[in-house]
């Protein structure tokens, strides 16, 4: 299937909008927030130019955006929204309702710091704040991944009947122009297929009640079932990613392992900093340093066994988080410790926090981390 490959220079936000244009969701409740806004603005222009037919609901808050997304998904439509930071925090209550009601919704996130103090730039505080909300969380390194994972994420949500976040780094990815490959629209539409909704609300001949009260005798079972669905979603993710690889030539998984096979020191991180870290790994490898990295792609659900396999031969694990978990270990740090403990592996684990509020991270800093020269937990 190697027809003419179309290459475009797009920002991460525009890449998401391009994928959405090809998916052409039926309903998009939208509300502006930096640095997400270019996604919905770009899509609104597609709509204005008659290139897509979507009901864009210009709601009055992110809480209503997610509430309307829940209503539209229960109705049986293909639904997408997008947000960042405070907007995601405002949605927090209804995120749990979307996942607990088992509704497929795709949400693009331009990850951004949370106030206070207010800051519009990138870090992972917002998405980490909802890591227990029952949403699948897929991270992107660059604009190409944003395009690809938007398509994968939409299909996955509808396959597993769970909501999915596709996460790019605010500004670093959402506003940086990169060259990327775009599939033909027909190919994307064929890959996506139609949503087959289970018991849609608009089936008036077969009425259903969405969102009942479940008390001590049934709530627990609902939540157990929900967790089973989440854990089962990994296999579907891998299956869909494999199908996608067949049409795109690009491979995605739960983790991307880079020079990790024989590495003594492995860095675990995600997002746009991974690109910088790969350059550093290459440089250090040339100097004979046995270093590698693991990029977290699927953060929820988290595949501990798979990560343990990748880390097996390493002597030292270096974890880079772009968020705190104030009062305990940072999110990725905790996951890595869980992974190693469950795999009966005792290894040296170092934890660092970088990039809060959009602070840049440079190759020299990552090199210092690999070489043991970075002593402070915060890479400032």
């Amino acid at each position, binding site marked *: 299937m190697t027809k003419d490959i179309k290459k475009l220079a797009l920002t991460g936000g525009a890449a998401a909008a391009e994928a959405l244009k090809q998916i052409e969701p*039926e*309903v998009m*409740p939208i509300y502006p927030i930096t640095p997400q806004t270019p996604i919905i603005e770009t899509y609104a222009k597609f709509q204005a130019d008659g290139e897509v*037919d*979507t*009901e864009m*609901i*210009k*709601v*009055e*808050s992110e*809480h*209503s955006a997610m*509430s*309307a*997304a*829940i*209503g*539209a*998904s*229960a*109705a*049986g*439509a293909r*639904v997408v929204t997008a947000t960042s930071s405070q907007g995601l925090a405002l949605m927090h*209550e*209804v995120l749990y*309702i979307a996942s607990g009601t088992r509704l497929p919704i795709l949400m693009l996130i331009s990850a951004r710091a949370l106030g206070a103090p207010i800051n519009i730039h990138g870090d992972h505080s917002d998405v980490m704040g909802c890591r227990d909300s029952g949403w699948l969380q897929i991270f992107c390194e660059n604009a190409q991944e944003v395009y690809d994972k938007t398509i994968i994420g939409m299909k996955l949500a509808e396959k597993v009947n769970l909501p999915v976040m596709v996460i790019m780094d605010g500004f670093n990815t959402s506003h940086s122009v990169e060259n990327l490959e775009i599939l033909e629209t027909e190919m994307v539409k064929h890959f996506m297929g*139609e949503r087959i*909704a289970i018991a*849609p*609300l*608009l*089936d*008036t*001949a*077969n*009425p*259903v*009640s*969405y*969102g*009942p*009260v*479940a*008390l001590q005798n*049934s709530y627990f079972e609902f939540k157990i079932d929900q967790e089973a669905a989440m854990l089962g979603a990994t296999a579907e993710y891998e299956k869909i990613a494999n199908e996608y690889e067949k049409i795109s030539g690009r491979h995605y998984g739960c983790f991307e392992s880079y020079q990790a096979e024989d590495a003594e020191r492995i860095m675990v991180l995600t997002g746009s900093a991974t690109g910088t870290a790969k350059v550093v790994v290459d440089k250090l490898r040339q100097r004979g340093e046995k270093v590698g990295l693991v990029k977290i792609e699927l953060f929820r659900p988290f595949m501990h066994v798979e990560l343990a396999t990748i880390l097996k031969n390493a002597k030292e694990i270096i974890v880079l988080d772009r968020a705190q978990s104030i009062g305990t270990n940072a999110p990725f740090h905790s996951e890595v410790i869980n992974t190693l403990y469950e795999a009966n592996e005792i290894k040296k684990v170092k934890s660092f926090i970088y990039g809060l509020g959009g602070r840049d991270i440079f190759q020299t800093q990552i090199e210092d981390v690999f070489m043991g020269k970075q002593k402070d937990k915060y890479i400032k």
Partner: protein
Amino acid sequence: MNKELTKYLSSGHSACAGCGFPAIVRAILGEAKDEVVVANATGCLEVTSTLYPYTAWKTPWIHNAFENAAATMSGVERAYAILKRKNKLPGGDKKIKFVAFGGDGGTYDIGLQSLSGALERGHNFLYVLYDNEGYMNTGNQRSSATPYGAATETTPAGRASFGKTEMRKNLMDIVNAHHIKYLAQANVAYMADLKKKAQKALAVEGPSFLSVFSPCTNNWKFPTSQYVAIAILATETNFWPLYEVENGKHKITLEPKNVKPLTDFLKTQGRFKHLFSEKNKPVIDRMQRIANEEFARLVSLTEKEI
């Protein structure tokens, strides 16, 4: 029970004896000409009608959270619009009317923004407020619909308190400011009037709004047999006037011939009991003045627009 009456909301729900909202829901939905899909804010109606694994709803129904019935309905209604346009409606093409229900907490207070947004965007739905003048589902706390002088658990009467110190919000005026085609204030005790208003509200293409008086036996503290009698007194004392605003024109739909003193209404309920002391006489006087002035204002609006 009458099959027609329970076409949408069956018997077997767990609302209190003497609660007004089952009658309100049935009266309004009973006027629907098309299929009906219902959204429900968190509150008494929601918890008493869908205790899993049971549901009293025989028509599609969705509950999302407390503050977002209108936003949820926005999504459902737009999904309907596009699936209809693309000929993808489950079960084939049909006409559906969307009706949201919320109590006063979910409408005047926590859900006001969501309601305002949906009205402003012009979704094709009817929003029904059943107003029991406080947070009754959580055990009687004050809302911005609670009248001045009423005792609640968060505005208790006491040696230094006569109950709620603020006037209730005029939600009808707020809703009217959205330039919607039809809104009306109704009362569960006046069924013919309520049904007529429901017909008009359901016939609107776009948003419409009904505010319906719904006495709460538990927390207003009156015998379960009295909810209709008390609701009638609310209108006969001009505490709860019945009116509508159709295409911007106010009209009083039922004007009491002999307006009764407000105390006739107040003395029927435990929540106002404390007001009948010498010390609280000025509070009752002020409540009467508020009712008189509000009604006079309403009359002046109908006259101005003729």
